């Protein structure tokens, strides 16, 4: 269990070094990305630039490819045999689909939170410490304890679970489980956090908690969130991309997408007339 008497302070990443700088840098740039499932083309040439320290929302009707595209960013699609990706996806200016990039290493830098809370059937502590352990992030037990505490604090879960870190993570409520998954993703010290409909299995109260958390995570990470909820996209994101049948029809600042979209389809979708 974490020795919480004198935990060494771990700073995951410098928080907004360039304080006051209003022009966030580009974290991920994609150019003409196509994704094929066998013969079916699921993504038809998507070019996007995702900014660091920003929440970017992907919205769009079901089956439009937003989740598929999200899974390209950490190469989770590699695990599907029939899936093929073309085009370039660059992170910090380096193509992540070249041979010299190890997908496993990439996934450590690009964390992911899934639609359904999926904690490991292990203790809360083991859930959070698993990533740091396999990537050798902690030099000793004290550091590991500190990482676990920091991550749980960042996921706004510490106060609720600090007395039962040895209890199974599967015993938590749905909202707590999802925050545990976020803590688990944060614990590997990623640079990008991908969230695939993180609130779709949660009740409104848990959703509010997770949304607040996402908003705060923006200070440290480039967050990409796939959501079906217009309100959620409007509440948490600064940038929004509207996906339609495997293409990005519109990508702009969130207020603009919701108040003054350029594309007619976007207008229809965000106002609830289509979708």
């Amino acid at each position, binding site marked *: 269990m974490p020795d919480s008497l004198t935990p060494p302070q771990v700073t995951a990443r410098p928080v907004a070094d360039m304080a006051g700088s209003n022009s966030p840098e580009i974290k991920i740039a994609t150019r003409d990305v196509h994704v094929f499932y066998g013969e079916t083309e699921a993504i038809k040439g998507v070019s996007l630039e995702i900014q660091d320290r920003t929440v970017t929302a992907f919205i769009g009707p079901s089956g439009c490819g937003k989740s598929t595209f999200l899974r390209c960013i950490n190469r989770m699609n590699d695990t599907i045999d029939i899936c093929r990706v073309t085009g370039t996806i660059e992170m910090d200016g380096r193509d992540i689909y070249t041979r010299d990039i190890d997908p*496993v290493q990439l996934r*450590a830098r690009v964390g992911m939170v*899934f639609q359904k809370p999926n904690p*490991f059937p292990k203790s809360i502590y083991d859930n959070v410490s698993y990533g740091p352990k396999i990537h050798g992030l902690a030099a000793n037990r004290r550091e590991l304890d500190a990482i676990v505490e920091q991550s749980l604090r960042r996921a706004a879960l510490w106060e609720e679970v600090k007395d039962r870190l040895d209890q199974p993570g599967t015993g938590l409520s749905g909202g707590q489980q999802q925050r545990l998954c976020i803590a688990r993703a944060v614990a590997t010290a990623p640079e990008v956090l991908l969230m695939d409909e993180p609130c779709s299995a949660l009740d409104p109260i848990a959703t509010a908690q997770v949304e607040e958390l996402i908003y705060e995570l923006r200070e440290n990470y480039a967050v990409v969130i796939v959501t079906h909820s217009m309100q959620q996209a409007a509440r948490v994101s600064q940038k929004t991309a509207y996906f339609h049948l495997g293409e990005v029809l519109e990508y702009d600042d969130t207020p603009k997408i919701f108040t003054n979209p350029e594309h007619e389809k976007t207008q229809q979708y965000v106002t609830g007339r289509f979708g």
Partner: protein
Amino acid sequence: MTATIDMTAISARHTSAASGARTRQRYWAQIRLQAYGILALTLAAAALVILLWTVVAKTATVLFEDYLVLDVQIDVSNRDLTALNDPDPRINVALNGVVRDGLRAEIGGGDGLGRREVRQLFNLVSTDAGLELGAIVKRSVQEGAPLIGARYRYEALLDDQVQMYLGGLYGRPVDAGSDSALSVTRDGEDTSRAVLSFEGGAFEAAREALRTRRAEQAARAEAEAARQQAAVEATEARIAALGADTDTETVERLRAGLDVYARAREKALENARALMAQASDRTTVHSLSESDPSVLVRVQGGWIKLDALGPDLARGTILAGEPDVVATAPASSWQGWLYETPETNRNISDRQVVWLAEFEREGKIVTKPNWRLLESSDSSNAELAGIWGALVGSFWTMVVTFLLAFPIGVMASIYLEEFAPKNAFTDFIEININNLAAVPSIVFGLLGITVLISGVSLFGVDLFDGLLKAIIEDPRSTPVAGGVVLALMSLPTIIIAGRASIKAVPPSIRDAALGLGASRLQTATHHVLPLAMPGMMTGSIIAMAQALGETAPLIIIGMNSFIQEAPSAPGDKANVLPSLIYIWKNNSERLFDGKTAAAICVLLVFLIAMNALAVLLRKRFERRW
């Protein structure tokens, strides 16, 4: 387009009479189905109960074993003394002489007995009685308190036939009728014979049994006469059918046969008449042969076996003791016994019956729990045989099987589920594994003997040289050989169970691990394998239970041999429990019947325990995601 239809009118059909009939029919069908189900369950339960009852009831006959208490004087020869003082535990001493002297002493010397009777006396105790006494004496010598030269109360294990008799499996003598005074006198000058005179009430039951027997014999003689008559008629018909041109030799031969058949018929008829007369006449004097029921009389401390029995007079031979032959014994001071099974039809002689009756009367026969059954190994003597060696053999075989099959099975299923590319070759392997699970186990035995024992040559090199070759020189097999064959047999089951339990791990767990940057190997070993392990263990335990009860492949590779010692390592010659059951079942000595059932019980206990463990594991580690 079809014509439009009035749906409202159709709705009315729901309340029609036909609809009501349909409902009733549906209920009826449901009740019928339930009845069939209950019937099937009842039949299955009844079959199980009958099976278990048969096994348990037979086992009950060998749960205890009988000993004869002998007061022996332990005098040993110089050669035996040397062996007794030898600290090497492998040097055994059989003190057969001591045991035999003890037996003679029990019956008062037995000086008048012939060779055959003496052998019957010695055969009362087990062949190993002397050896076991030797072991006791040897232990006493090693412990520094030698019994040599002392008198010792030795409990000698009784022979298997004797134990069967005492257990009532050969029938026991019943009261022949003893409600009269009985006077015993000498039969002339012969001291070994006696004449018994009595009044009505004595030996009534015995004479009744004899009359019944005579009637049965008469019926058999009549049947024989009828058979001869049929032969006569058939021959006559053949002679009549012969043409005039038949040579006289054939006719002569047939006529001679006719005479033989007719004489045999007359003889049988005469015999039947005589027997019938004896059966119906209450005053007849029966003469008793060895194939008649035995009538034994205990009077004045001695035993007389009757060879003639009339309504008020009987003659017999003195079997044991020295009954006071000029005395009249009042009713209830003597007993007459009738043993329905004739002496020639049983494995225990009248003399042995008499000795055992005296031993029982004196309380010299003690019954003890039969730990020998569990503690000793196979023996050709039924009373000495136990299952320990086979149990240890089964244990080593299971160890080898598990060590081979489990790791290979787990690795194969992990590879096939998590790493193997999904292509035609993988499908081909999968189909083959599923088919292997359905292959009769004896085929694996054939595989074992051809591949592992005879060897497979590839480019002139014997692939399995030396592995199991020893079996060719010595047909008895080892747990290593059995374990390899059973591992091959268990592999498909373990792989199928393993793959099923890996499939049952939800993909979200894999996603979570991969999303955190775990490699596929880390995902498999850190998350999938631990979650699938209870299911794999369950499958493996069930496969092990199946292997534990497997007989056919082991018989083929020679694990059904007679082995008197428990193996101390997997490479030793050994036997396994199911093949021991098979050997014992084929044994002619009847005590093995009960021992077979006991071995089956032990096997069942192990199988039930293993299956219970599997269920427990499943319940304990059952997870909901």
